[in-house]
Each structure stands twice: as C-alpha cells, then as structure tokens.
C-alpha cells in the first residue's frame, strides 16, 4: 500500500492538465482537442505550452471526437477533453463508431464526473457515463481518485493502444497516494486489508470509503478496501480474492448504481462467486444542485451511509 498523509487538495482535472504538458514535452505525437472549455478541463495549460498541437474546435463535441479519430489515424495520440456529459453522451455514437470500432488510440478525458459538478446542476452532472462507455467494446474506462494516480493514469492511457475514457473531478480531492504509486490499468489498489467486508470504491468515493473503513475499524469491523480505478477491464481477480475472504461486498461509486461499478461487480460475482452485494451510489435518480457534501449526504453516498451499508450486507452473510 502506497499512501501518504493528505498534504493538500487538487481536482484531478488539474493533475490531468499538468500531466498533459509534461507528456507534450516528452512526446510530440501528443495533440489535444478541446471544445471551448479549456479553462475548465485545464487543457489551457497545454495550449499555452504547445499552441501548434492544440485544437479548440468550439462547442462541437461530436466533431471533436471524430477529428481526434482522424488525428489518430495519422499517427498522433490525441486527447479529447470536455465534460463527462458531453464526452460520453453528446458524442456517444462518434466515440463508438469512429474511435472504439476502429480501436484508435484516442484518449477521452472528461471532467465534472458525477456529483463533483455539484452546483452546476443535473445537466452537468454525469451519473450515467460509466455504464454507457462500459457497454462499448474496446473501451478502457478509468477513474483515478487523486492527483498522483491521475498523473499515472494519463500516462498509462497513452501507452494503451486503443481508446481510453478517463473520468475526472471538478472539485478538489485530497492527495491519497505518493508520486510513486503503482498504478496499473486493470489492477485494483488495496488500501486496507480486512476479513469482514469488502468495499470496492472508485474515484471520489474512495475517500468516503476510507473514512467509512476507519469508522468500521473503530467498531471492530475490518474492511478489505479496493480502489477500483479501472472500471473496465475490471480486476476480477482482486475482487474474487477479496469477496471469497469476506463473503460480503459493498460498491461505492459517484454514478447511478445501474450500469457502472456496481453492475460490473455484480456481473463478476454472479458468474464466479455469488456473494451478497450492496451498491452505494445514486439509486437510479437524477440529483440536483447543491454543495458536494450536501449531495453526498442527501443521496446516501457519504461515509456514514457506507458504514451502514457494510453493516447491512454483513448481516446477509451465509
């Protein structure tokens, strides 16, 4: 386990923007496409450093997605940036047909995932994207929880010869890992070892899960905690290993409980190791405007709800 005491906070989109600049310096195949929100997605940093390799296409996400396909066909490694709502849904079919089907090395980095878009309201809160993108063949789907793992994820995305969907937060996240975190696509990171209940968390929910695990530990319940930063391909081995040991699983995601992490875990458990499961996330509802903390509480996604979910699912053990 490679964790560091929280030093400061940073939105993962900032780590993305910074890493793009580093990558741009190291590899001139990197190009960045943007749809008029470069200050939000942080690609303005790349634009300043490498204006020739930055293309702001205006508010036209579908066009942007296919332009990236054209650039990838010509040997470039494009990053496409926008909000998650638009990356996964406005340009959904373009991603599927022009990027995923020809299996091009296009990296789709999207900000404002889930409730981290908080007071912008529902139109800008993507709570469906993981389920949508997961259904598309050839896609790799990532949501690292903090800045250091995001930096690693951006680099890993470049190395994968195929499309990657990288989900980022609008708001600041604590720094959990140190800079040498062993981030590998498709390999969960075990944050805590325990034998009583498994919590599988992704993205910003990793922090709620950590806090829940600490509170449960105070009650004598030991949590096996996995940072499942790769939703697809899912680290089935790590999941089964943990589920076999604990016999009870909770998933935690800033997303609808239909289609995303909870679904992926349910599929894997059903096929390999039927285990009681509770899925924490938005219970198939749209949210509303509000502060991030208020929203997590209101929709039953904060640490105390996770504690409760863990207790409930443990009662269902055989």
């Amino acid at each position: 386990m490679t964790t560091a005491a929280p030093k400061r906070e940073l939105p993962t989109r900032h780590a993305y923007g910074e890493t793009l600049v580093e990558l741009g310096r190291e590899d001139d195949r990197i190009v960045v496409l943007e749809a008029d929100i470069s200050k939000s997605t942080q690609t303005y940093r790349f634009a300043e450093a490498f204006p020739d390799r930055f293309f702001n296409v205006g508010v036209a996400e579908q066009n942007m997605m296919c332009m990236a396909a054209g650039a990838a066909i010509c040997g470039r490694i494009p990053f496409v940036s926008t909000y998650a709502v638009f990356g996964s849904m406005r340009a959904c079919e373009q991603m599927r047909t022009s990027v995923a089907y020809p299996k091009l090395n296009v990296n789709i980095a999207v900000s404002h995932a889930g409730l981290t878009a908080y007071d912008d309201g529902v139109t800008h809160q993507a709570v469906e994207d993981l389920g949508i993108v997961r259904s598309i063949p050839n896609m790799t789907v990532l949501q690292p929880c903090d800045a250091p793992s995001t930096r690693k994820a951006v680099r890993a995305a470049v190395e994968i010869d195929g499309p990657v969907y990288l989900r980022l937060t609008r708001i600041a996240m604590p720094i959990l890992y140190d800079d040498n975190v062993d981030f590998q696509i498709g390999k969960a990171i075990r944050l805590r070892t325990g034998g009583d209940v498994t919590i599988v968390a992704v993205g910003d929910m990793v922090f709620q899960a950590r806090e829940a695990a600490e509170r449960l530990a105070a009650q004598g319940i030991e949590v096996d905690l996995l940072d499942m930063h790769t939703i697809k391909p899912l680290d089935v081995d790590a999941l089964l290993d943990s589920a076999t040991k604990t016999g009870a699983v909770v998933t935690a995601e800033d997303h609808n409980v239909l289609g995303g992490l909870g679904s992926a875990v349910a599929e894997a458990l059903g096929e390999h190791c039927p285990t009681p499961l509770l899925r924490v996330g938005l219970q198939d509802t749209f949210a509303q405007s509000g502060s991030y903390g208020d929203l997590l509480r209101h929709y039953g996604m904060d640490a105390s709800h996770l504690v409760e979910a863990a207790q409930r699912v443990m009662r269902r053990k055989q």
Partner: protein
Amino acid sequence: MARGQAHDVDSLREIARQLRIDSLRMIHLAGGGHPGGSLSAADLVTALYFHEMNLRSEEPDWPDRDRFVLSKGHGCPVLYAALARLGYFDPQHLDTLRKFGTILQGHPDMNKTPGLDATTGSLGQGLSVGLGMALIGRLDRRAYRVFVMLGCGELDEGQVWEAAMCAAKYRVANLTAVIDYNQLQLDGTNDEIMPLEPLEDKWRSFNWNALRIDGHDMPAILDALRAAREHEQGPTVIIAKTIKGKGVSFMEDQLDWHGVAPNAEQLEAALVELGP
C-alpha cells in the same frame, strides 16, 4: 500512382464504367447493398482515385499519400472496386462483399480493407475525420491532401456543419469535400425530407470555397478538383450534381434502388446497358 499522370478523359470514363459494373456485380452477389449511391458516385471516385489523388497502391500506408474518407459509407462498393482495380487487394475479394469473414464489410472498416483510410457508415462523421487528418498533415508538414465524399442526405446531420465551421476556422486548404448530390435520400427527395438549397450560399456562409458541377461530366470534375487544389485560402466544397443509379436506365433517379440488390435478371439487363 502520382497525381495527374494517370489517364485521359476517355480512359477515365471507361474505368468509371467498369467500376459501375463491378459495383452491381458485387451487390448482386452479396444480395444486399446500396446500388443507387454507388453508381452516382462512380465518376467522382474514378476521377479522384485514377487521376487526382497521390497514391502508392503498393504501399498503402505511405505517409505522404492523399487520404480519402467515404463519409457516405453505404456507397462503399464503388470504392472497393476502385481499390481492387488499383491493386490494393485481389479483385477476387469483390465477390465476398458483406459475407461473413470478408475484408469488404457492409460499411467501410479501415482495419479490414487495405487502402481504406477511415471507418465510416454512420452518416455525418466523415468530414470531421478528414478535418483531423488535414490538420495533422499540416502539423507534420506533409503535402498530402484529404478528400471527403459526402452524400446529400447526410447534410441533414448537424455534425457536418460543426466540421464545416471548424475547417473554416483553421483554413485547411488541404481539405476538399465532394458532395455526391443525387438529391435522393432514403425516404424521398431532399426537398421533401429536408431542403438543402441554396447550398453554395450555405457553405459560403461558413467561409468555404464552393463550386458546383455536373458530377458525371469528367472534364468538369477534373477542372473542379484542380480548382480546389489551387485554392489556397481554405477548404473547398465541390457540389457535384449527380443522378442516383446513373448508367442504368431503370435505376436512374429511382428511390427504390437506394438499398436493394439487383437479382440475376436485373443485373443482366443492367450490364447490357453498361456495355461489355
């Protein structure tokens, strides 16, 4: 084959005739496909592949080659026929169109067919793909040009106009759009379904250089392609008026021949009209 070396107008006309024959044979054998839009595009595809474009069929991935994106992907039989005749693959593959395991998918798949530059079939996306290629060509300081063939019905798709606006912003003179303007879409004429005129005005309002020609008049096609090549201020669109099903009297301007394969008898009649 380098640009302009290839053929005189008569031999181009002959090639176009052959591509029409190939297309109909392929579609007949496949038992499905889109003859109308293959025949309407035959002269344009011929002029591009056998005259205008800078290609090396023996080296399909030659980085300096001109690119072609068939945005109206359903018209692919005529493109496959052109690629086969240029030697990108054995013409025997033409008999396998749409069959399981074939390199010639129902809609173009760049990872299966040698010589194909892009995967297409969902209408409205090709101009964006071509724009990406054109921008990278400029970035890489390569002299290649990118041609995108659009159907007319496809102009209903908003994404075409997203790409049009963006291409004008970047003044990509190495990008040429060719519209196979046969004025028929699946459900009816453009005018019935969604009128397009005044089409030049529309493209000009996006700051494109717009030309209109008869898309079956070979010298006119060659002239327009030259004019597009010489226009250095930005992208050019060639609005090529064509006839759906061109060359086969019973298919010409017939909506019903958008997506139906000819049976043996119909193929025979068509081949008689197209000549030996």
